[in-house]
């Protein structure tokens, strides 16, 4: 897909252009874009696979309600990538099913 350059009504404040990683591969995104939006702009629609039938999953609602866009971000599963914004250098990968929650440093 692509970003809209010329819109009759809207101007987009995309923020700063940064690089983050999808499945280890560098992707250009902007700090005012959600991870799901930046991936879509890069032509990546499959964000994960379902738990039992391993069906491909993309986003559906884009406003944090449907849980269809859950991905693993910096090792953390179940991140709603339609709500989480792009940050420079983050590592994003497709989630396979539920995955397990890693104990974070400092957790009891």
């Amino acid at each position: 897909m692509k970003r809209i350059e010329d819109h009759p009504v809207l101007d987009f404040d995309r923020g700063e252009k940064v690089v983050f990683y999808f499945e280890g591969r560098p992707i250009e995104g902007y700090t005012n874009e959600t991870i799901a939006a930046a991936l879509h702009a890069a032509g990546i629609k499959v964000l994960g696979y379902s738990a039992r039938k391993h069906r491909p999953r993309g986003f559906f609602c884009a406003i944090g309600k449907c849980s269809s866009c859950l991905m693993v971000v910096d090792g953390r599963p179940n991140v709603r990538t339609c709500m989480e914004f792009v940050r420079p250098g983050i590592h994003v990968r497709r989630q396979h099913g539920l995955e397990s929650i890693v104990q974070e440093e400092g957790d009891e």
Partner: protein
Amino acid sequence: MSERYELAVVGGGPAGLSAALMASKFGVKTVLVDENRKLGGQLVKQTHKFFGSYEHMAGVRGIAIGRKLSEEVMNDPNITVMLSTTAIGYYEDGTLALHQREPEEKLIDIKPQTVIFATGARENMLAFPGNDLPGVYGAGAVQTLMNVYGVLPGERVLMIGSGNIGLIVTYQLLQAGSRVEAIVEILPRIGGYIVHASKVRRYGVPILTRHTIIEAIGDEKVEGAVIAQVDERFRPIPGTERELDVDVICLAVGLAPIINLTWQAGVEIAYIPELGGHVPWHDEDMRTNVPNVFVAGDLAGIEEATTAMIEGELAALSAVEFLGKASPSELAAKREDAHSRLEDLRLTVFSEKVKAGIEKLKNWRADLTERAGKTPS
């Protein structure tokens, strides 16, 4: 546990924003919580102009209304705004649990004296093979992607549903540079305003009434769609199937209220299809059966941003009454004014359904009691 707020408003869309502003007029110390980075709710993606109903907002784009209300709220000394914060629970002792994601992640609990839930709605799904494929998007999602983030949802789109949302989003897709191959509508007539329908037709988008989607084609993502004509009983007519080369299937088939928090708060949930399905029980002044809990906007029944704003005012007035911040006569005048504006907005044929739903909700408790006395036959 921080300072004690008199009112927490959950949701910074049209209903929540106007609720906070109305409460502020009575000096209510309010916290407004929203899970996005910006206030405005779904107004942030409404590039179309509103119709001539709400006296101050006629002909104004939704985004402009959102921006104006947001600015007022941000500059209001009585209102504390918490952004990037999701309300994740409301407990028996009145604790509202919040999860803040930015600037740093933390869990916060507050104990507001009153709560107005204005949590909005989520999009409906439609059952067809392949409906879980990436590329099947809700109409609101398509709007978010193209109008908020400036990313084109796809090259060729099939729109399902010819209500106002389906028609408006079709037009917005054309503005953004996508092709819309067709709009399919299962009913024999177009659902939305004729002025919107004429506009997309002028751009050459066919509106196929008595049609539905049969399946989405594709392994990893949408690569096409099969549509067909339906008979009087909405069954597909064999032999009328047609394949469309599309990469996005956009569903504009209605919304459902997000009731989770009100349910947890102990608000009775009624099932009223005309209002979008399960809705929190409420009276005409937006009180629920829980004395310090109020509702407004799409959560209280799927309708429009204009009506949501007035419901927000009414919910705020009820919270003000609970808090004992105003005299009954002062409240009466404001309530009367709000109710008359609401009535005006609900004069169109499109409001018949909502009005029928509100009527059902009024009788819901009595109906339940009556039904409970009967054995199913």
